[in-house]
């Protein structure tokens, strides 16, 4: 489980950093290629970098799909929780469980649809050609326009990311049933601000803001239950 957690974190971290570096490189390349510096210009013009936008988009879509799963684990997804946060603990916990199971339902449906789509979109053909079987009328799938990568590989972010997300919803739900606790990017982080150094993982979408469900364990910064943590 720890390995899966770390893997998830590393994937989205690297995708985030990588995409930034790629666009930086593309802009610098285009800028320099426009200057008529003998030699350098010809070399830069000969480099083919028209794939950078496409790659950046693919990386960010993957980052978004796996990051959404990570977001379930960290409890960052926002909802309309003003009303249920006013309910009694026992009623609220029913809604919380319902919400988590709805998340699991949606992501599992999407994972299934996505897997089916990827299969029809070229994975089936690729699988057959890999095993050397007859194609019949199974069509070869399309490719992306610039990199010319098979789109089924690119699109598999949907089934993979959604499956992981579904798993995370179930994990959070199970944890909630057992402990009454929801993941929080803790409000406590802002407590240590007096020393004027902001912790790097302070999260503006995580301050008991009625956009997230209040669990049974943590008291909120706010009116009704006092200011204590």
């Amino acid at each position, binding site marked *: 489980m720890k390995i899966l957690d770390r893997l998830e974190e590393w994937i989205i*971290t690297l995708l985030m950093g990588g995409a930034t570096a790629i666009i930086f490189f593309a802009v610098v390349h285009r800028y320099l290629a426009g200057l008529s510096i003998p030699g350098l210009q010809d070399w830069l013009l000969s480099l083919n970098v028209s794939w950078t936008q496409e790659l950046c988009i693919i990386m960010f879509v993957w980052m978004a799909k796996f990051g959404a799963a990570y977001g379930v684990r960290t409890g960052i997804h*926002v909802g309309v929780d003003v009303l*249920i946060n006013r309910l009694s603990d026992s009623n609220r916990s029913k809604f919380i469980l319902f919400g988590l199971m*709805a998340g699991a339902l949606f992501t599992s449906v999407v994972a299934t649809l*996505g897997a089916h789509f990827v299969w029809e979109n070229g994975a089936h053909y690729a699988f057959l050609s890999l095993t050397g079987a007859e194609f019949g009328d199974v069509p070869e799938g399309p490719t992306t326009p610039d990199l010319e990568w098979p789109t089924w590989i690119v*699109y598999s972010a949907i089934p993979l990311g959604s499956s992981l997300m579904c798993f995370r919803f179930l994990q959070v739900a199970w944890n909630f049933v057992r402990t009454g606790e929801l993941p929080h990017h803790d409000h406590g982080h802002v407590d240590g601000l007096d020393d004027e150094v902001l912790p790097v993982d302070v999260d503006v979408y995580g*301050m008991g803001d009625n956009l997230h469900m209040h669990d049974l364990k943590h008291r909120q910064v706010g009116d009704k239950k006092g200011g204590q943590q």
Partner: protein
Amino acid sequence: MNAAIIFGILAVLMLTGMPISISLGLTVLTFLFTMTEVPLESVALKLFTGIEKFEIMAIPFFILAGNFLTHGGVAKRMINFATAMVGHWYGGLGLAGVLACALFAAVSGSSPATVVAIGSILLPAMVRAGFPNRFGAGIITTAGALGILIPPSIVMVMYSVATNTSVGALFMAGVVPGLALAATLGGVTWYRARKFDYPRQPKASFAERMKAFRDSVWGLLLIVVVMGGIYTGIFTPTEAAAMSAMYAFIVAVFVYKDMPLSDVPKVLLNSANMSAMLLYIITNAVLFSFIMTNENIPQALADWMLGNGLGVIAFLLAVNVLLLLAGNFMEPSSIVLIFAPILFPVAMKLGIDPVHFGIIMVVNMEVGMCHPPVGLNLYVASGITKMGITELTVAVWPWLLSMLVFLGLVTYWPGLSLWFPRMLGMM
């Protein structure tokens, strides 16, 4: 009829408190499954292609840049610079707070991030200098909202995604209203500080000002990099976002050295976390607006409204009321992504400029962020000051009231938003 069913399902699902993205997605699935012949696989396709657009990529880039700036000592130096410039006037540090928020807003795309960056440093300092807690909290909560009006702005990118309006023109259209709102909030601050005779800072000497400027120049230069880069055509708005992330990284880690290299993965991870959450809402909102288009709902709604003789003035009033109400339950990105595709076609038929309409929505979102029960800025400020939400709400009202007046001005005076981008020839 279909419209009623779709919105009914959505409202019920949202009120149960599940993530907004999930309730959007489940609404679409339920509707597709029971009432249409659109193949369900198109949902899977849309979930990928919904964010497969280069303009959207500005969002993660701006979030990343904002995180580097927040943690990399840029905010601190901007506050010092602002204090050196205006700290000796009535309102002292408070006025410096408004100026620092405006400066930071010009490099950050998010309002709550602006509140965190400026507030976490300035608010403790204001208390030490003898200001009442609530004075500072009121200023930073509202001035932090400039984060989405002064470019760059994540909410503007969301609006442009939802309506196909040019991001560059929206950014430029935010400049003048942003400065005007900063001046308004500064005015309220000055007036109240004078009335209650709050402390003023000693006037900084010219040398001190120069030093504060030199210290903060790397942060201030980013304003030139982003706006100048877009305007002079070195890069597109999306590329500008990537460049500012790279620049902020270099400034935080190598120039100011307030952030160790070992913190960089953590900043990347946190930025990815928040970006992914917003991108997930976008994907599902795109899905939602796809199903509405497929059922011809926005057009029908537009025709119905116009058929009932709705004029520009009444429509804009209705839009403001609707968005202010929505601001009680949701955060800005979701509001823009859900409401813009519905309201936009009507606005177009009434001849309202798409860029102006975007600025109206953005100012609305700013107001929504500053009042309970849901208001991101308010909760961030509460986290920093440890004041209760009720107490904070009372603290915020003088500034919030002026923001409401300003909203009216922006709504019915298109020239305020449109003059600058027109002058630059961007529209």
